[in-house]
């Protein structure tokens, strides 16, 4: 669907005339609801505004009833879900803002710009809160790289993140890569941003003070990205995204990014906030001006008058609905008290940022005892009103659907037929080599060091960053951040799988010495009109809630991306968790994954017998094509003890105390085998290990396990006992071979070739 179809009733596929509201993505019932709110038929502009604001992407209309079950409260939470970003008190007068988003659909259509504008959008969410964006992370899912189209998507997405993130001057400090045929037509491009601010500067995206100026900052407004949220993000794809296909026709709905404009916008906005020159700030993202004006007015319980003729345009003869719903990038809405306007223009001129007064904040009227602010739009000052709606009705009154849910019909059979009965591999070594992949081809293209904060960067279990940045009070604290997802686990059991993903996030943070304090989530799912997808979403949210409650973690923000389907096939449920951890004192680097010769290799695990099931493992899925079975058991109480132990061991070293650990790495996708191989590769030192229980012990993905290497194994075992955690000595590091008794013996050179060759080889490059 292109912008032209907004022009009036349009011919449908069968040649019938499709009513305008349906062409815009509103159902007949939703139109009735609009009529009920306005007490009359909406005009074209009003309809377009409701269509974008009530889209799945903006309104979360299918997911809200479920998201309400997530825990949101926690000791350090300054701002929870519903604002532009979640904010946590990190200590020393510093607050940390964090948010995660998806840009899946735009990236499937135009990978470079789709991914680039995803970065731009999330940065604006962070500096809207008054925080300087300090780090990005990009979890990505694609189909297999042996297909040319996947290489085009992958190279484009990575190139887009690199081009935008590097130029805008925010380091990309990590991410995650998944390759699975299920993402062939619908890649996932998620992006997380972390920022920091002096607590005193925290601002919320709300308008206040009737008479204050509504100011549009940044880029001009064009026809790019019109209907991005409704056309792209809230509908699935057909079978093939090739030229001439319906997907090709969606290309005009993808926005184009300009990191240089955004960089100046960041600096100008932060300077305006520092100088106290704005009373409210809101980014323009999905649904453009319609969203920014209605959300800020709704949050501030005020109204707003907007004069469209004051909006700087990059194209002639734009219709009012185009101006109000354009998703042109690099724009912000500021609310400014009139006496400050001259100083605002001065700051903006210095940064070469355009600033235009496009309206005023107006008083809300009391209707039945409730303040109702109206969003009133004119095409020129004093001209006729072209839209007049209660602002909050756009932002808050979208319908909420309790859509039908149903588990898949064959759930019982799928769970019964797991991979545990499969014959063991003839050569475990060959299977291990096939599971290794070095992501450095990706992160070498990202500036991951700017701001001099990156103590542990991409490739580590989690990024560990000094808590420092321009304008922040001095601090010896650090923050850790990670993103985790696992579609193999979540496809088998969305509830238990999502809980395991949360558990892994917390373990990853622990490996760099950080105590998890909050998470954000990005729920990537298929078509919510499919009952099985809604069941997956509901189950995943329950699993997330269970794990977060047990581990004491508030969910301080999130994003839901639905309609990730093509040709009727939904992607596997892919909730991605972004975890934030804190370190109280950072004086020394964490041990990292690499061990040195002579160290004793110990696996830390819950006490009692282990659960060596292979269900949901990379080995079962990628090496045997088995996506069924059940997941290993996650004991959240035992997990918390394992995590506490690891934080205790690592954080002492970080703080400058005696360093007990030589290496630390959690066991996750690929199982113990992949963890050991990565540890050997990190320093180029092999190991001789014993007592691994067959191929299931090597490739099973039971949670709550961390491998450590130490020169003082007795002390580690003693600390573990104190925490109620089990330990098993696996052997000793050293030599040029990774040998696991009875299972494999691999030369480091072989391991290295398999590890570093994979991704570059797909592009005909050397590793």
């Amino acid at each position, binding site marked *: 669907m292109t912008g032209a179809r907004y022009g009036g009733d349009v011919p449908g596929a069968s040649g019938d005339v499709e009513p305008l509201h349906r062409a815009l993505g509103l159902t007949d019932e939703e139109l009735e609801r609009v009529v009920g709110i306005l007490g009359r038929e909406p005009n074209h502009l009003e309809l377009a505004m409701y269509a974008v604001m009530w889209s799945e992407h903006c309104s979360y209309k299918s997911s809200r009833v479920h998201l309400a079950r997530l825990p949101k409260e926690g000791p350090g939470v300054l701002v929870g879900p519903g604002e532009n970003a979640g904010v946590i008190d990190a200590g020393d007068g510093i607050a940390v803002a964090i948010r995660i988003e998806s840009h899946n659909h735009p990236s499937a259509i135009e990978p470079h710009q789709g991914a680039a504008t995803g970065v731009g959008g999330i940065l604006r969410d962070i500096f809207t809160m008054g925080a300087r964006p300090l780090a990005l992370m990009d979890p990505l899912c694609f189909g297999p790289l042996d297909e040319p189209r996947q290489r085009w998507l992958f190279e484009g997405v990575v190139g887009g993140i690199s081009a935008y993130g590097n130029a805008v001057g925010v380091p990309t400090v990590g991410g995650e890569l998944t390759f699975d045929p299920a993402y062939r037509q619908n890649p996932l491009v998620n992006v997380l941003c972390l920022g920091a601010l002096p607590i005193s500067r925290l601002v919320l995206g709300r308008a206040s003070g009737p008479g204050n100026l509504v100011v549009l900052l940044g880029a001009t407004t064009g026809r790019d990205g019109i209907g991005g949220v409704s056309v792209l993000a809230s509908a699935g794809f057909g079978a093939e995204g090739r030229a001439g296909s319906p997907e090709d026709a969606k290309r005009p709905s993808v926005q184009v990014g300009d990191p240089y404009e955004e960089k100046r916008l960041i600096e100008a906005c932060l300077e305006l906030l520092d100088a106290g020159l704005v009373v409210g700030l809101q980014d323009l993202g999905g649904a453009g001006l319609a969203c920014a004006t209605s959300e800020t007015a709704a949050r501030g319980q005020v109204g707003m008058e907007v004069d469209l003729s004051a909006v700087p345009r990059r194209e002639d003869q734009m219709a009012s609905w185009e101006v109000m719903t354009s998703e042109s990038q690099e724009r912000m809405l500021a609310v400014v008290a009139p006496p400050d306007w001259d100083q605002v223009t001065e700051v903006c001129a210095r940064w070469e940022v355009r600033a235009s007064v496009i309206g005023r904040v107006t008083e809300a009227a009391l209707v039945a005892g409730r303040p109702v602010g109206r969003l009133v739009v004119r095409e020129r000052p004093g001209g006729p009103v072209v839209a007049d709606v209660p602002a909050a009705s756009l932002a808050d009154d979208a319908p909420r659907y309790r859509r039908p849910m149903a588990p898949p019909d064959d759930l019982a059979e799928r769970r019964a037929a797991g991979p545990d009965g499969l014959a063991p591999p003839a050569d475990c070594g060959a299977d291990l080599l096939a599971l290794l992949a070095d992501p450095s081809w990706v992160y070498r293209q990202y500036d991951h*060091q700017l701001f001099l904060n990156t103590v542990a960067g991409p490739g580590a279990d989690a990024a560990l960053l000094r808590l420092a940045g321009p304008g922040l009070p001095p601090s010896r604290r650090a923050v850790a951040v990670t993103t985790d997802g696992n579609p193999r686990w979540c496809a088998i059991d969305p509830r238990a799988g999502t809980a395991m993903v949360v558990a892994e996030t917390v373990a990853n943070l622990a490996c760099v010495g950080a105590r998890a304090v909050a998470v954000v989530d990005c729920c990537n799912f298929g078509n919510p009109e499919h009952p099985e997808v809604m069941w997956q979403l509901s189950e995943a949210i329950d699993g997330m809630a269970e794990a977060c409650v047990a581990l004491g973690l508030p969910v301080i923000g999130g994003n839901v991306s639905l309609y990730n389907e093509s040709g009727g096939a939904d992607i596997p449920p892919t909730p991605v968790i972004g975890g934030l951890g804190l370190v109280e004192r950072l004086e*020394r680097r964490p041990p990292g994954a690499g061990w040195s010769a002579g160290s004793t290799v110990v696996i830390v695990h819950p006490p009692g017998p282990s659960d060596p099931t292979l269900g949901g493992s990379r080995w079962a899925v990628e090496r045997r094509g088995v996506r069924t079975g059940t997941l290993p058991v996650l004991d959240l109480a035992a997990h918390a003890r394992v995590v506490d132990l690891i934080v205790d061991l690592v954080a002492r070293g970080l703080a400058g105390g005696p360093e007990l650990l030589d290496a630390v790495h959690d066991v996750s996708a690929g199982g113990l085998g992949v963890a050991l191989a990565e540890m050997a590769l990190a320093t180029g030192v092999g190991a001789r290990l014993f007592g691994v229980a067959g191929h299931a012990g090597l490739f099973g993905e039971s949670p709550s396990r961390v491998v450590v290497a130490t020169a003082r194994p007795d002390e580690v075992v003693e600390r573990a006992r104190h925490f109620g955690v089990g330990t098993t000595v696996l052997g000793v590091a050293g030599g040029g071979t990774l040998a696991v008794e009875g299972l494999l013996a691999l030369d480091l050179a072989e391991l290295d070739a398999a590890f570093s060759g994979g991704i570059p080889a797909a592009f005909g490059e050397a590793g």
Partner: protein
Amino acid sequence: MAARVGVVVFPGTNCEHDVAAALALVGATPELLWHGLRDLGGVDAVVVPGGFAHGDYLRPGALARFSPVMGAVARFAADGGPVVGICNGFQVLTEAGLLPGALQKNRGLRFMCVPSVVTVTSSRSVLTSGLEVGTELVLPLNNFDGSYVCAPETLEELVAEDRVVLRYRDNPNGSLDDIAGICNRGANVVGLMPHPERASSELLGSVDGLVLLRSLLSLPVA
């Protein structure tokens, strides 16, 4: 008294705070200099830091050379003042004609954020004076256009006049003659692609960059 070092900021520059922090670590007093200034305010040295000056539009450094501050930087350099361009700053100095040659896209045509091992090949320059030739330093690279090129006669001149100050040990980007950094005839203007400020703390994994910055502060260089 601590040396005052001006750090030039164009719209789009992003390494100015990092460079200022690293300079402070070696005892300098950094001062940010906005690109619209026509006067350097009496600083003792100038660093043009990395980033994307004016968005790198047209090509890196091509617009920055027209910023008012560059006239002042050129006069400062002509008077023998120490000027160091790091990464995008190096690109700016070549575009401004303060250093010969140009930086083109990396071999492989990808952005590259990797550690590099560089060898000090001349101790003539303000950035390498006091360092022994042959000293190896580990410094991060972070650029798309880092491959140094120049005319054959320019290269001959650079080599003959001992003006190649840093060379890569394992040339990662296709630079001519493994060149990572050069200086002008007066040895007071230096450009280099690696980022010394990113190797300024044990927490970040290397302090090799501080060696160069200390050298810059041991002013003046004859």
